[in-house]
């Protein structure tokens, strides 16, 4: 019987979780400073056991303080963007929806650029925090304009998001046009999506929000299946649709805000990963959401590793890599529409 059961969700999640761990392990062995792969893994496992063996001080610092946190952060963001994208696609019944569709990302960008221009970029918390606040503020404004008589009308919300997003884009362009050369480079990299701004503490900032958003969405994943065939359809099957929409839109926006604030606008992940996962695991959100999270996490860690190493010692913004992979893949999806469902 090809239906989703608890056992299947757990089995596939464990499998994809192992894949993610594998990608992280490969990622920390690679980089511009050559640390032999086996020694990298040795350093990691020693540290997990609470020991300080494996390599010299510098190598330990590179593996444990730079590469590992960065991989975990990329994983969190990849998971967040994919889950958020899958949710927006369901709520808006639009396959082209992505995590940035409600303009949340533009709010984050304005926050980040302000932080850079005010020179707060050098503080470890400054940039992501102001960016996160910018994103949250945008969420509030979009929902204020997107709701009518206590109800969310997807089209109104979408329109509010697009218009507020355009307005914020004007601000972004204004800031770019008045900024200095050094700042400009930082701003452009942020807008393309880049993990080099972040450090281990960024994980602590966004982890609670992404986790909270994920659980709120997962609890409603069965109902998201029903809203996929329209809001009236969901009502006919006994769903309190207004509550579902409110919680889901806000959770997905919160996840987007948290993700974007630490690494800028990484494109394509939130659009492509849910589609790819649907092709393999089917459209049921009870599996789609955890599977998208784990596949998205693996994909972004892999992309960031390529971004770090392709032109080493120069680092590319990770957004360049995701778009380079994502664009052709999306065209392939559009052209073939082939379904390779294993479920």
């Amino acid at each position, binding site marked *: 019987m*090809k*239906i989703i059961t608890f056992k299947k969700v757990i089995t596939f999640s464990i499998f994809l979780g192992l894949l993610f761990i594998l990608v992280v392990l490969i990622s920390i062995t690679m980089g511009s400073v050559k640390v032999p792969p086996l020694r990298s893994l040795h350093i990691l496992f020693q540290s997990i056991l609470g020991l300080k063996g494996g390599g010299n001080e510098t190598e330990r610092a590179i593996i444990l303080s730079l590469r590992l946190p960065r991989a975990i952060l990329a994983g969190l963001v990849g998971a967040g963007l994919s889950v958020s994208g899958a949710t927006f696609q369901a709520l808006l019944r639009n396959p082209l929806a992505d995590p940035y569709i409600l303009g949340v990302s533009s709010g984050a960008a304005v926050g980040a650029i302000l932080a850079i221009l005010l020179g707060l970029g050098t503080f470890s918390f400054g940039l992501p925090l102001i960016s996160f606040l910018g994103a949250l503020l945008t969420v509030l404004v979009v929902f204020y304009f997107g709701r009518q008589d206590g109800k969310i009308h997807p089209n109104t919300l979408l329109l509010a998001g697009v218009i507020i997003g355009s307005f914020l884009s004007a601000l972004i362009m204004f800031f770019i046009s008045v900024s200095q050369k050094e700042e400009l480079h930082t701003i452009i990299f942020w807008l393309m999506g880049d993990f080099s701004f972040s450090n281990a503490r960024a994980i602590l900032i966004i982890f609670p929000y992404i986790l909270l958003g994920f659980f709120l969405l997962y609890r409603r994943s069965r109902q998201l299946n029903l809203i996929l*065939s329209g809001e009236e*359809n969901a009502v006919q*099957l*006994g769903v309190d649709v207004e509550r579902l929409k409110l919680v889901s839109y806000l959770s997905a926006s919160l996840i987007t805000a948290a993700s974007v604030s630490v690494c800028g606008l990484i494109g394509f992940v939130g659009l492509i990963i849910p589609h790819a996962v649907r092709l393999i695991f*089917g459209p049921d959100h009870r599996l789609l959401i955890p599977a998208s999270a784990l596949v998205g996490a693996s994909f972004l860690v892999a992309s960031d590793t390529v971004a770090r190493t392709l032109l080493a010692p120069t680092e590319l913004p990770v957004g360049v890599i995701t778009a380079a992979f994502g664009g052709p893949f999306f065209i392939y999806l559009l052209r073939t529409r082939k379904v390779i469902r294993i479920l």
Partner: protein
Amino acid sequence: MIEVNSISFRYHDDWVLEDVSFRAERGEFVGLIGPNGSGKTTLLKILYGLLTPQKGEILFELVPIKKMERADIAKRIAVVAQETHLLFPFSVLETVLMGRSPYLGHLMFENEKDLEIAKKAMEWTKIVPFSERHMDELSGGERKRVFIARALAQEPEVILLDEPTASLDIQHQIDFLDLILTLNRERGLTIIMASHDINIASEFCDRLILLQGGRIYQMGTPEQVITKDNIETVYGCEVWIDRNPISGIPRISLLKKGRS
């Protein structure tokens, strides 16, 4: 079973339904007919609580619909709407299992019993052979059967149908309506069907409600409602009414202008 007490409803300024009252008894097959914009679909949406009328109330077994939880309504009233979105299509079995949703509450997964009920519903509607196919691979008639199966999986007492035969050829129309009639006669399900096809409504329904501009123009047996005067007044076109030679039930024929 369902009691509609002088309801009026408007989306914006103009009333779409005005002072509509009727009852549907357990096991009845009621047809809603009337021209485009006469309020049939709106009335169905009010019956299952999607829309709330500004005046009047609906009682289900003497309980006001607006006091019932959405899930409780869905356990008793199932809806087979016109076409639904098929953006990311589910399989037939997955779609039928969705009918169990009102019983799951906060549970995430269906259990063996839910699966059993879904399979029975699929046997009734004869869709077991393509249970693993996806919804976008089915014909219009097959898809309608799947939605009936989903409705049956809700174990409802009432099924609301909105233009169920609109996109079907005559063979599938008859197959579909025979299935509905069997559910009505053998399982005692109450059926309320909105239809554009006056002949079908006349042939299958025990009672008809003829709507005009949001008001009930006439209500009664097909003999009482399908008359030349009623139809010509409400629909504003010329028709000929005689009887179906086999069933003896009123039958309508359309005429070109100036032929009567």
